[in-house]
């Protein structure tokens, strides 16, 4: 579940883990790819994606129960 980090791009700078208001990345360490400790607590605020300094290192996946209903 969200977010998803691309290991090959992430530099382990720790910004996402530091900024996440819900502490989804609890237990992460600097210089390592952050751990997604509590994926189900992500509120999809997008802060981690917007603040990550590396393009496309981190993205969010919309959980299927949250797919918009439209016609």
């Amino acid at each position: 579940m969200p977010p998803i980090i691309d290991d090959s791009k992430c530099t382990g700078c720790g910004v996402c883990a530091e900024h996440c208001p819900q502490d989804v990345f609890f237990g992460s360490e600097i210089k390592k790819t952050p751990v997604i400790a509590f994926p189900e607590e992500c509120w999809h605020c997008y802060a981690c994606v917007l603040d990550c300094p590396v393009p496309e290192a981190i993205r969010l996946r919309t959980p299927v129960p949250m797919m918009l209903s439209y016609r």
Partner: protein
Amino acid sequence: MEIEHIKADVLCVGGGIGGLMAAIRASELGAKAVVAEKGNALHSGKGGGGCDHYLSYIPEIHGPDMDAFIEEMLQTQQRHNFEGLGMNRIRVHIAKTFDIVKMWESWGIPMKYRGEYHYAGHAFPGGFRCLMKYEGRNQKPILTKKALEKGVEIVNRVMVFDLVSDGNKVYGAIGLNTRDEKIVVFEAKSVILGTGGISRLYPSPTPGWFNNIATRLSLTGDGRAMAYRAGAELQNMEMRIQHAGPKYYARFGQATWIGVFRDPQDRPIGPFVTKPERLYGDITPEVNKNIFLEYAQAGKGPVYMDGRGMSQEDLDYMMYWLPHEGNTPLIEHMKADGIDYLKHPVEFMTYDQGSGGRIVTNEEGETSINGLYAVGDELANGVSNASVFGWISGENATLYAKGANIPDGKEIQDLIDEKKGLLEKIRGQKNGPDWKEVNVALQQIMSDYSGALRTEALLDTGLFHLKRLKQKALESIIAGNQHELGRSIEVLNMIDIGELVFICSKERKETRGLHIRRDYPLTNPRLNNKVHIIKEVDHRPVTEWRPTQK
């Protein structure tokens, strides 16, 4: 658990919009201001993803008669929002809005659109437009930076969970570090609660899921729970609030959408617009947020937000504002799934937002306890309310702190020992339910026994069951680390609030708004201008009816 001590003149609990504004003002006036924030103030709280509407009155735009503006505003969703707060407070609020707008602008939050103040959305065609569009995407990082510049100390990852008070006066608070095994004791001359609303008391659109909520899962009514335990008065805890937004992707922001709410036969469900109108939106759900649920229950739904027929320019305008309104992920989802809003109406639904209660304050932001203030969503929703009263409370708390001192009594130590005991007990418990399990149980009791329908028998049964849950949770809830410990304390706070909802619902023997008592279907006119107060006296809840403040 190790204990850390932090001293402050003014402690702001919660680094949301209200808490940061209060701290900025207090620091500016010379107080030592500390913000304790359970997440990270940069993006925390309801305003953390951004907002795009600022309720504000500018005489040059709206005319010299502020009361005419207020009258118009009270026909929109603000009527429920400000219910029971009194006209004086509303006037103090509205009169101050333009000052804050100018201040925010000077701090770097763009309050103008294409060089001008621009009002749109939340409006009836032909009436005043009361909400200014502003670019709030970065409001939290900007306010955080401002607070640091002014010398505010921001302590992130500390969840405050109880006040230090003698029942009459407050002189600090206790928090837990949600990362390290630490308890943080704040010795403060005054305390401002800016902990936001309550989001997980009632079920989300996806049962058992805590993250699919219109606000944020870390807003758990901590402020009102600790204010109550410290002896402060709360009001109208039984009143329920609802919100409306896209179905399944629960999110605030309904008034940023442009289009017409239509039924499956393409008939507009409201009388206000028949084609997409960028300056107004469709205000129908502000008149009745329950309308989507009513349509569903009557077999007349689903209801869609329908943007078909709008110009590309209007679509670009809406897509420009939705990210400011904290809806970036929703737009990304639409893009990823190829949902073209020009072709596809999006279904909307009613969200159950839970208890509409609030902490009792006066126009100065003071609660019924000396030295304790409350701001923002602890009273009413909105960026404008949070920022104006944050500012006012920061000022008054600083004044109060000048004449206050902190007793170095035994009481503080006793409280620390008691709380430390509770936290360590929870950390030591094994094989019990985690916070999520307890939260699911709480939501099921709230929605089944104190939800859309209420009777004396249901309320008695639910309250009995809730008390059992509380006992069981205290005895057995588990937390494997400090983060889960914080979540556990949040659930315990929500159980406390749930109990108050039951007690107040029992006492309100009438039907009013969304408080539907099947056994008391009448709306009692004798309660029209009354607020329902609850407070703790000698460890027991005591309720009272009081005339609404003038």
